């Protein structure tokens, strides 16, 4: 049996909201959030999957990502919600969109959600990263571990941030860090496993956590090989 979940719009049209999980691989890791958004919009058109548009002056497609992906980041688990016009089965949806997506992006799962479901942005609760940092010179594992311990034992880790208005404010990032472990130690690079948690839709960028370790040998720039391995939703 094929189940299709639909919502009836005010004007009688049928729309379905589909939540999908996708992966971004190395080939497209340097896309910006807006580039990726446009890419998906065009892919949906090519796939002939009709997306609902917002009403008004400048209509835009109803397509929302859980989170803006950083330039350079790869992911095994990303989420987005899209409102599709008419009825479409999940199989058809996945088949069509994957045919239209370029190498480097792939939808791996999808399901219907009901109208009024908690938004993706509000549903995020935990994210696990694997980060491979190149080293400018070799350092010992003990030194790195010591730096991690030192940071994690702090009651508060204060960072200064510039607000949208240009003012400097302080933020404590400690509550967002769940675990930080060394996964693999090599001569020229080091791989971390970092788990962060979302509190009231706020979190900390993985790069900032690594910067806080204050190790000079780390080469921290957008080319750092960072993969989101898991994104847990409530």
């Amino acid at each position, binding site marked *: 049996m094929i189940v299709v979940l639909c919502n009836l719009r005010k004007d009688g049209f049928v729309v379905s909201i589909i939540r999908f999980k996708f992966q971004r691989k190395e080939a*497209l890791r340097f*896309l*910006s959030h*807006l*580039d990726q958004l*446009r*890419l998906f*919009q*065009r*892919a*949906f*058109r*090519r796939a*002939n999957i*009709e997306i609902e*548009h917002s009403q008004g*002056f*400048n*209509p835009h*497609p109803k397509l929302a990502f859980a989170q803006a992906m950083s330039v350079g980041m790869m992911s095994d688990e990303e989420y987005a919600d899209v409102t599709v016009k008419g009825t479409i089965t999940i199989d058809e949806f996945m088949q069509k969109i994957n045919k*239209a997506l370029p190498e480097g992006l792939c939808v791996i799962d999808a399901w219907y959600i009901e109208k009024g479901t908690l938004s993706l942005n509000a549903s995020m609760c935990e994210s696990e990263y694997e980060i491979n940092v190149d080293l400018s010179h070799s350092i010992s594992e003990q030194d790195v571990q010591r730096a991690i311990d030192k940071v994690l034992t702090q009651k508060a880790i204060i960072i200064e941030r510039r607000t949208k208005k240009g003012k400097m404010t302080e933020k404590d990032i400690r509550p967002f860090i769940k675990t930080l472990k060394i996964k693999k130690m090599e001569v020229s690079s080091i791989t971390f496993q970092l788990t962060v948690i979302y509190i009231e839709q706020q979190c900390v960028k993985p790069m900032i956590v690594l910067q806080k370790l204050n190790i000079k040998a780390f080469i921290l720039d957008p080319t750092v090989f960072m993969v989101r391995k898991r994104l847990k939703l409530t």
Partner: protein
Amino acid sequence: MSHLGMKLIYPMLNRREDTWCERSFAPWVDMEKQLRDHDLPLFAIESMMPLCDFDFVGFTLQYEMSFTNIINMLDLGKIPIRSVDRTMADPIIIAGGPCASNPEPLADFVDIFFIGDAEVTLDDLLDLYKIWKKTKKPRVEFLKQAVALEGIYVPAFYEPTYNTDGTLKDFQPIVEEAPQKVRKCFVDDLNTAYYPETLLVPYTSTVHDRVSYEIFRGCGRGCRFCQAGMLYRPTREKTSETIKNQIDILLKNTGYDEISLASLSSGDYPGIEILIKDLVDKYEQDNISVSLPSLRIDSVSIDMLEQMQKVRKSGVTLAPEAGTQRLRDVINKGVTEEDLMRTVQNAFEKKFGHIKLYFMMGLPTEKDEDIAGIAHLGHKVVETYFDTDEAVRNRSLKVVISAACFVPKPFTPFQWEAQDTMNEFVRKQKYLKNEIKSRKINYNWQDSHLSYLEAIFARGDRRLCKLLEAAQKAGCRFDGWSRMFDYDTWLQLIEDLEIDGMFYACRQREKEELFPWDFIDIGVTKEYLYHENQKAKLGELTPYCKEKCNDCGVMQFKEGWVCSEHYTV
């Protein structure tokens, strides 16, 4: 990435079983530094293969001030800059596009120029190359075979001589295979010619990030400053059936949500309003919008504006070109102030709040009152806005006046004319700035230094090759970008090399003078251009081709060609 020609040639080459074509772009200065610091060659985007490993490297010549970039790209691609230094291991350097109409400033660097529509002979050239490559004969043998094709120019096969006053004395082929005159080639019927079914869709948002679709080629308006209007004659229109079918395929394959109907004067397409209405009706429900590039004032109708803004609201760009009726008649622009005001009023009634007006400064016969006329038109546009019913008009108003410095171009009736000096441009710009009183008007002007150099190269000869080479060595690149343009360096080089810039840019030419580009036959005759030049001085208008044939020469150019047979109505 925005260039339509590249989007056409790229799939055209890649459709061949025996050819693959990739893209490469001039890297911005930071990337260039990285390449040079790490001794990496400039590469093609798709496979990252260095430019020097390709069989051909082709450039489009859109603008004179991109010439240094071309030389720099050769250098970065590890290809010898000068043709004479290239060996069997190096690629053949080809170039085409509007600036190929006077290829001489690039004569030392480019092996083969395409004159006219490259689609016609590109396949033939590759076929010749394939055979030649197997023979392992010297490069010159291939070039000799290439010149047998129509529209192919090999600069190494020609030699100029000069008079004592610096003007060209003679320009002759030095190998027997090379023709005396190089005839441009053009596609007869765009309906049956190759057109791609898909376009390259960039990930980042580029300028013109949409389906740019060419609805016709050529223009019969005969504006006397316009080079494209002469170069791309005759006018060849696509039928609305072809247009709609090809657009539908392109939209499906690219996923774009905007179509732009491109041509030299899209408002002149017969039945343009019906075409737009059909497209809007068909795609409106999919939130796909239709736009037109800059419009002739007399061709914009209320209905069309209304159609176009159904989906997404954009500004209106209009090009009166000159500030007074007298000067507009000189340039044969044939539009009136009433046309402009009527169009602007319609636009305001349709809630457009952003009007862009394009002008040129330094046109032949221009006087200060013509400059004042630009400000006057701007003020009248603002007045028209305030005269429009408040309930109807857009809440905000922005009028942008853009005045470019006029650069006389080859193959135009103004090819004999002197460009204004830089001091004169600066004086006129200040004058116009003072004349503009309204705060609703935003006035943009252009760096006159840049226009001066553009004018030098536009009508230059091959004695300028050494200047380009020296400029690239001195670090000049991206000259068209104001923050990169280094006029002082250019000026120094011009002095060091004892080049007379004024000779090229600001000199009034005699009727009989032999021009460096005269060996090219574009179909429109030099006699016709001169006749137009004389009419300009008298302020006499020349009618639109479609209304009356003015005998420009293009009908005699190709045997049996009748322009009217290539109009759709």
